């Protein structure tokens, strides 16, 4: 047990850390609503002017569309590439799991700049649009995370036996996958999709290196604004932050739901 002074001390430190982490976010949010906030402790007045200004700026909507498109593309490609692999390895070739696990760690160890140089060298002379290379590169970067989450979805049950059982019962492989595997891993897939989506949405290094100013995503736009217009950039940061907070909330809800077994569900039926 902690003594009361120790407890006080622990709480005090926690509070300090909390303030250290939360204050900048709070300040940014408040700043985004402020008419002007220069030499005072509190802003002089509140306004939605900055939001209006940002939202009506064509640069913003263009960047938003690019970011959404990039994230969506990355998510779909990552799922289309990794889900079949994870399924195959878990159901047909469990002995390959160790090797695959090693491969999926690799992107952690390769710095973005090397990845980009490598990609450009390999693909520069091929008639492939750079945006596609970018999507593939970001999908690759998200591999460790996506693989882990997808793979975890396969731990709970003996999916191999379930799949084979469905075949023996007369089912063809694709309906067997859709009816027996998919419903039991769908929350895992959804979590993996959200995580891939957010990591692609926040991607900066690769995008900037590979396409730079030609393809201004929200993140790149945000950095550009920071240098010119502090208030506009705080508006963007706030929007960005709320968006991520929203997605995190969804993630927490899904995971909590997935962790409580469907006892309630079965009682209701």
């Amino acid at each position, binding site marked *: 047990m902690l003594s009361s002074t120790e407890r006080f001390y622990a709480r005090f430190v926690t509070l300090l850390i909390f303030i250290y982490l939360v204050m900048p976010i709070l300040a940014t949010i408040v700043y985004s609503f402020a008419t002007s906030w220069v030499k005072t402790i509190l802003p002089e007045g509140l306004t939605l002017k900055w939001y209006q200004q940002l939202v009506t700026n064509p640069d913003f909507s263009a960047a938003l569309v690019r970011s959404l498109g990039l994230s969506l593309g990355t998510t779909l490609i990552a799922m289309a590439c990794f889900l079949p692999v994870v399924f195959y390895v878990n159901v047909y070739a469990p002995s390959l799991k160790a090797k695959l696990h090693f491969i999926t760690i690799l992107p952690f160890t390769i710095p973005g700049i090397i990845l980009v140089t490598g990609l450009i060298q390999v693909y520069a002379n091929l008639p492939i649009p750079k945006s596609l290379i970018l999507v593939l590169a970001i999908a690759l970067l998200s591999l460790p995370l996506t693989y882990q989450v997808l793979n975890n979805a396969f731990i709970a049950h*003996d999916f191999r036996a379930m799949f*084979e059982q*469905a075949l023996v019962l*007369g*089912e*063809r492989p694709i*309906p067997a996958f859709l*009816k027996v595997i998919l419903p039991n891993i769908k929350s895992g897939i959804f979590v993996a999709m959200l995580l891939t989506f957010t990591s692609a949405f926040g991607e900066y290094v690769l995008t900037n290196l590979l396409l730079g100013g030609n393809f201004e995503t929200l993140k790149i736009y945000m950095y550009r604004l920071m240098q010119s217009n502090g208030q506009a950039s705080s508006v963007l940061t706030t929007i960005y932050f709320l968006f991520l907070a929203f997605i995190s909330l969804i993630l927490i809800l899904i995971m909590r739901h997935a962790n409580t077994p469907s006892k309630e569900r079965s009682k209701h*039926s």
Partner: protein
Amino acid sequence: MSSAFLALKDLSITLSGATIIQHMSFSVRANTLTTLLGPSGSGKTTVLRAIAGLNTRVDGEILLDGQAIQQLPANQRQLGMIFQSYALFPNLSVFDNVAYGLRVQHQSAEAIEQAVTGMLATVNLSDKRDAYPHNLSGGQQQRVAIARSLVLKPKLLLLDEPLSALDAQTRVDLRDQIRDYQQKLGITMLFVTHDQAEAMAISDDIIVMNAGHVQQQGAPMAIYTQPANVFMAQFIGHHNLLTGDQLLALGCHHTRTQAVRAAHHYIVRPELFFREEPQNAGPVVAIAGHLISATMLGDRIRYRFATAVDQLTLTVERLNHTTPLALNQPLTLYLREHDVQEVGPHA
């Protein structure tokens, strides 16, 4: 073998480059429960999966009811298979699990309702029809898996160690129920196990395999009393496996059929030693020695008996039904020569 319903002919199976099963042949009669018995790693699951169509590299022929099925994909073989892990679909209720195969066949809702309800009654799970797998006990889950296969009236039901994850009592209950379903519904079952007692208790026929080969096939009694070779004698266990040299040293010069030869192997079952010299039983050998340990087995006591022959101890049972015999006292046991059986070398 009369009316082979399932026949494996010269089956070889290669998994990731390793040949697991080599030139294996056996057959299973219709409407019997046949067990495939063998130690862990002997290839039982591999054979079962090949019959179900779940292994990729299979050479040889698999005949089911006269039809060669080795080329058919798993979903066209019309077999049932029970997996050790039950393989229930966790997202489906008990009813929907059992109805799965019928729905694949696009049967009408009424037909499904009727068949599933009937099958759930058969396996005694009518009150669980709306429950989900994770709310059932292991034994109940396995009964759902059995119902899910049986409701399709498969030509052949394959069971891969279906009882190994259950506690002792449930095992025995469910084992007898499986035998019961087999006889009531008149289907052929091929039951994999590594548990001899289980195999002996429920089988019409036992196929013992080891290292990818069939060692012996026969009725439980024949498997127990006439092991075909040294592996079988060791596997069935507690047989006294003696060399001809040892038998000659004990003073036994003949078996029922021929003279004992020094380099051959012989078995003597533990219950065939007597404390009193048997009358009218042909030549009898008297063996002097003493008991060195006793193990209570419930219905009988098993002793280790040290003979005067160098290093040779025998396992003997059923010497005395009421009180244990004293250890370390001089004792003479009698053995009838015609109870000594020769066994072949390792297969």
